[in-house]
């Protein structure tokens, strides 16, 4: 392994996530003309960080704000609304849910996932999966898959398992329908698929501890999302599928126990409670 890889692995992965998501957000706002206002982003952060601060004090935790930042970035990237209240409310619910909804020390839901589903349920928000455009998406996939290989992220197995399952299902559909292979490539232009793969389903605080459990969960999420989108012709299947299936993590852990995840293994003693991650 290269020195770069080695040094990458000793840094909290959430710092990379923040750097990537942050630049993605700026690029989207100023180059891709996202239907998102700077004020909505500011409100997301104000609300999300305030709720994080509240719970850290209340529960006397020392987790810091990395996870909350990742959640706020994820929500800003995904949620679109023509109101100013949906974003901050989604951030508050997502991050609040992280502290309030726990099973065996794990989060019942990924905070950004909870925030997204909550925002959609309010009926004043939508997701624009195609807002990124083809060229941006090609660059983003290359960058993220590359970074994953170099850093050997410890929970990348679930991202790969999910992506492989989902794309295999899409490939089977292309074969079945006799479509051109470009259709499969076109699936990768979906920005929510990328964010979901690398920053949401990979959230170690919601995943089964065993590799088998994670693979099973990833496959089921892919299957459900695929059926929702291509069988029922509904929208936002990825987020609903993960939302419905992450609570099964406790079952997988009972069936196949494994080691608990820790963001900073080197600093294990300093960080007993282990920060709550975010969208991943």
């Amino acid at each position: 392994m290269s020195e770069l890889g080695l040094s990458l692995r000793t840094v909290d992965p959430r710092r990379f996530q923040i750097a990537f998501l942050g630049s993605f957000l700026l690029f989207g706002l100023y180059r891709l003309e996202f239907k998102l206002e700077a004020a909505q982003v500011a409100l997301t952060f104000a609300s999300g960080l305030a709720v994080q601060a509240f719970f850290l004090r209340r529960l006397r935790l020392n987790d810091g704000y990395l996870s909350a930042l990742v959640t706020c970035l994820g929500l800003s990237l995904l949620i679109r609304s023509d109101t100013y209240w949906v974003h901050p409310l989604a951030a508050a619910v997502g991050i609040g849910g992280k502290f309030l909804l726990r099973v065996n020390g794990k989060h019942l839901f990924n905070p950004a996932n909870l925030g997204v589903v909550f925002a959609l349920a309010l009926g004043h928000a939508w997701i624009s999966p195609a807002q990124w455009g083809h060229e941006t998406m090609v660059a983003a996939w290359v960058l993220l898959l590359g970074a994953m290989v170099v850093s050997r992220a410890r929970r990348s197995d679930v991202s790969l398992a999910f992506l492989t399952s989902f794309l295999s299902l899409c490939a089977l559909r292309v074969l079945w329908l006799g479509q051109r292979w470009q259709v499969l490539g076109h699936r990768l232009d979906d920005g929510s698929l990328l964010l979901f793969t690398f920053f949401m389903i990979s959230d170690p605080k919601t995943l089964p501890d065993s590799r088998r459990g994670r693979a099973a969960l990833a496959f089921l999420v892919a299957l459900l999302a695929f059926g929702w989108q291509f069988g029922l012709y509904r929208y936002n299947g990825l987020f609903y599928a993960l939302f419905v299936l992450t609570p099964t993590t406790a079952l997988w852990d009972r069936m196949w126990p494994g080691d608990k995840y820790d963001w900073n293994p080197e600093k294990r003693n300093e960080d007993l409670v282990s920060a709550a991650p975010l969208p991943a």
Partner: protein
Amino acid sequence: MKIWLALLLCPLNASAFCGFYVAKADSSLYNKASQVVIVRSDGRTVLTMANDYKGDPKEFALVVPVPVVLHKNDVKVVEADVLAGLDAYSAPRLVEYFDEDPCNPRLLYSKGSGVAAVRGSSSDGSLAQQRKSAKALGVTIEEKFTAGEYDILILSAKESDGLETWLTQEGYKLPKNASKALKPYITQKLKFFVAKVNLKEQEKSGFAKLRPLQFGFKDARFMLPLRLGMLNADGPQDLMVYAITKKGRVESTNYRTVDMPSDREIPTYAREDFAKIYPAMFENAWTKNDKRSVLTEYTWDLNWCDPCAAEPPTRETLEKLGVFWFADTPDSAPQNPPFMPRRRGPSRGGALEARITRLHVRYEPATWPEDLVFQETTDTRNYQARYVLRHRWEGKASSCDAAKTYLTKELPERESKAVDELAMLTGWKPEKIRSDWKKARAEGKDKAKTRQY
């Protein structure tokens, strides 16, 4: 017989002022523009496909994949002017302002647009094959009826080769690769809506032009089958989608949807040349967005407009276009709703629940591998592609000090900015714009004929 396999079947009217092909609309132009109205709510869709086909009616045919078997009651023809009105209402618009006497003020009206007609191309060919029965080919004629001047068949098929063979032996000339393009629809158990012109009925109807066809169905899919339309494509094709929903803006979920640049001040000679300028702006915007994006030209509450390129459609017009939910809102049923064109705020009382989104799609086979899928968002913000002209004050620098500043400083700066703006919007060279403007000015073509407020 020739056939347009398509959603967008045939030849259609280019958008109002998009003025594509304004110079001529002869038959040598390709089938590059079509118009579709999609009315959508609660899983129900009504599609209206306009066509301005000018060729021999015998040669006209249309094949559209549809999710369910349609019956006679589900299909009708509508008058072409209904669609033209919607087109004009939602078209990108020019707005004029007039500089005040700097030593004095005022302002605006909108300029509508002319409609350019385009006709389509068709593929030629002959058939001849041993005739096989529909059954042997796996083709079932689910329904057969006449709607207006059209004979309609609703087909289902077991395999694409069979369908291709059957259509060919029935006298439809299919483009190359039709079978391959039909296959995904057959596998998904879609039916095929096939229309051709019934000459007797057409004669009886007294309409020289073929009228738009409309049909409705209930299905979860909110999409347009583009792929069939690409079969006779020779280069990019234009599709104007007018999506009418209860509340929210419509966007594509599998192709990026962006707004056309708007509210830009451009040189005043645009008033005569808008039909050339707007298509260049569109082309430029499309290219800058990877040639893979859907461009929004308009989305607005259908009760009003500001400024209005044309009056908002009436309740009656919207119902003709297939809007089916007004009856569900009992009290808001004045026969002539109080439309308030040109008003600046949403109308109250009696307003209709309807929003239009005008999406301009330019697609090509290589980079648009999938049919267009849409979603209705919850976005209720209004947007229009609007370009602004500011006519100069025609006075003398000696009138007052302010006039001097205006003529020597403010005006040249502003006009230079307008040139740069247009250069950025169209990709044209600023020198070309300057010389065109100068020429137009010398010929007096950049002036409003009458000053209006």
